[in-house]
């Protein structure tokens, strides 16, 4: 059967559309800027629509979408670094979810996401893709274009580092909600 425009459109609606919420989540967690993250997702979707015919039919649409998005995010983050742009903590936090279950959760989530933001970008990506987006190690390796071994070591280092960050006192000036008691509370 000839692959026609309408079938392609149906495929796109079926395979791309359900991924949009997850793509937004990944972009925002990486960029910590709602508007910039959504711009990135829009860019990603436009590219996906334009390249739909070039997609390997045996490939997984989700992995493919995350690959496009990750590459866009990585180049955006590099631009930011080059321009010396630095987001203020307030900006970054306004981009975070604002509907936690409780006050305690709110503080816990804020600390955790601050810690996540303090990780090197390569560890943060792996942690988000594996732990939050539930990509397999192989899929994560494909998205980041690195060997699985690299995914595993970044994952291990990222988890360890984040645990240490949560374990240590909050930086001066910030409200102290971290520390030992906090760690016990996570458990």
């Amino acid at each position: 059967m000839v692959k026609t425009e309408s079938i392609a459109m149906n495929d796109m609606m079926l395979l791309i559309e359900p991924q949009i919420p997850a793509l937004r989540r990944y972009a925002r967690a990486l960029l910590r800027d709602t508007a910039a993250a959504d711009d990135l997702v829009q860019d990603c979707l436009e590219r996906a629509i334009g390249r739909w015919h070039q997609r390997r039919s045996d490939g997984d649409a989700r992995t493919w979408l995350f690959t496009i998005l990750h590459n866009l995010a990585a180049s955006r983050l590099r631009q930011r670094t080059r321009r010396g742009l630095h987001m203020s903590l307030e900006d970054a936090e306004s981009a975070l979810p604002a509907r936690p279950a409780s006050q305690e959760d709110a503080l816990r989530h804020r600390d955790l996401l601050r810690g996540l933001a303090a990780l090197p970008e390569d560890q943060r990506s792996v942690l988000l893709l594996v732990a939050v987006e539930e990509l397999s190690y192989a899929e994560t390796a494909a998205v980041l274009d690195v060997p699985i071994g690299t995914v595993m070591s970044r994952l291990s280092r990222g988890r360890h580092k984040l645990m240490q960050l949560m374990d240590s006192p909050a930086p001066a000036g910030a409200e102290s909600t971290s520390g030992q008691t906090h760690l016990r509370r996570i458990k």
Partner: protein
Amino acid sequence: MITGRPIGEDDLQAYVDQALEPARRDEVKAYLDRHPDIAARVAGYAAQRDALRDALKPIAEEPVPPELSLARLIEARERRRFRPGSRAVAAAVLCLALGGVSGWSARSLTLPPETGIIALGEEAAASYAVYAPDRKRPVEIDAGGRDELIRWVSNRLQHPVSVPDLATAGYRFMGGRLVATAHGPAGLFLYDDDKGIRIAVLVRPMAVEKEATMSELNYGSVAGYAWANDGIGYSLVSEAPAQMLHPLADEVRRQISGKI
């Protein structure tokens, strides 16, 4: 089953992510039972994983903003492809300029190829541009020769066609003709209203995209709709905003699905 393989850091990570085979998972579990300090670290990672998901979950639960509506983005892309000055048009012009010399290589610049109702819509717009402004002889067979026109077009298309009736919408049938397209012969029917606004309906068999839902077309001054039904493609275009033509296209579609 005990493999005897030593437990590695990767095993601990995979244990957290529930990515281990059942046999290996049991081995790791037994190992953690013997090593409470490492078990505590692994439990911390698992809690961290849950907490990250909880913290970021609300983002994925937000309503998707309209700018990220996939249907809208697809539609916007289709419109861009039709707009004069777009890549496809530039490539087509280049094709003409290069002529027979390197026509084949120039063709490849028009990727992705315009097929299906996209091509049909372009053909309708091209026919409209040639025949609708013609004040002297817009049609080859006028409304009086409706039956003859239907026979002629049906024969050449090797498919029975009918002429949609848009009188209730205020558009008189003017007549029609057979036109040439890159995908073979097509029937062109013209209509006009009291103000002289003309509408064209193009009909031809579809080699690809034999069934396609109605798509909006936009070529600057000419707009309209195209769709395909049971292997026959239809496009309705005019010099009017597409939204104004929507009820007319719906009416044509309704008549056709009722007749064929």
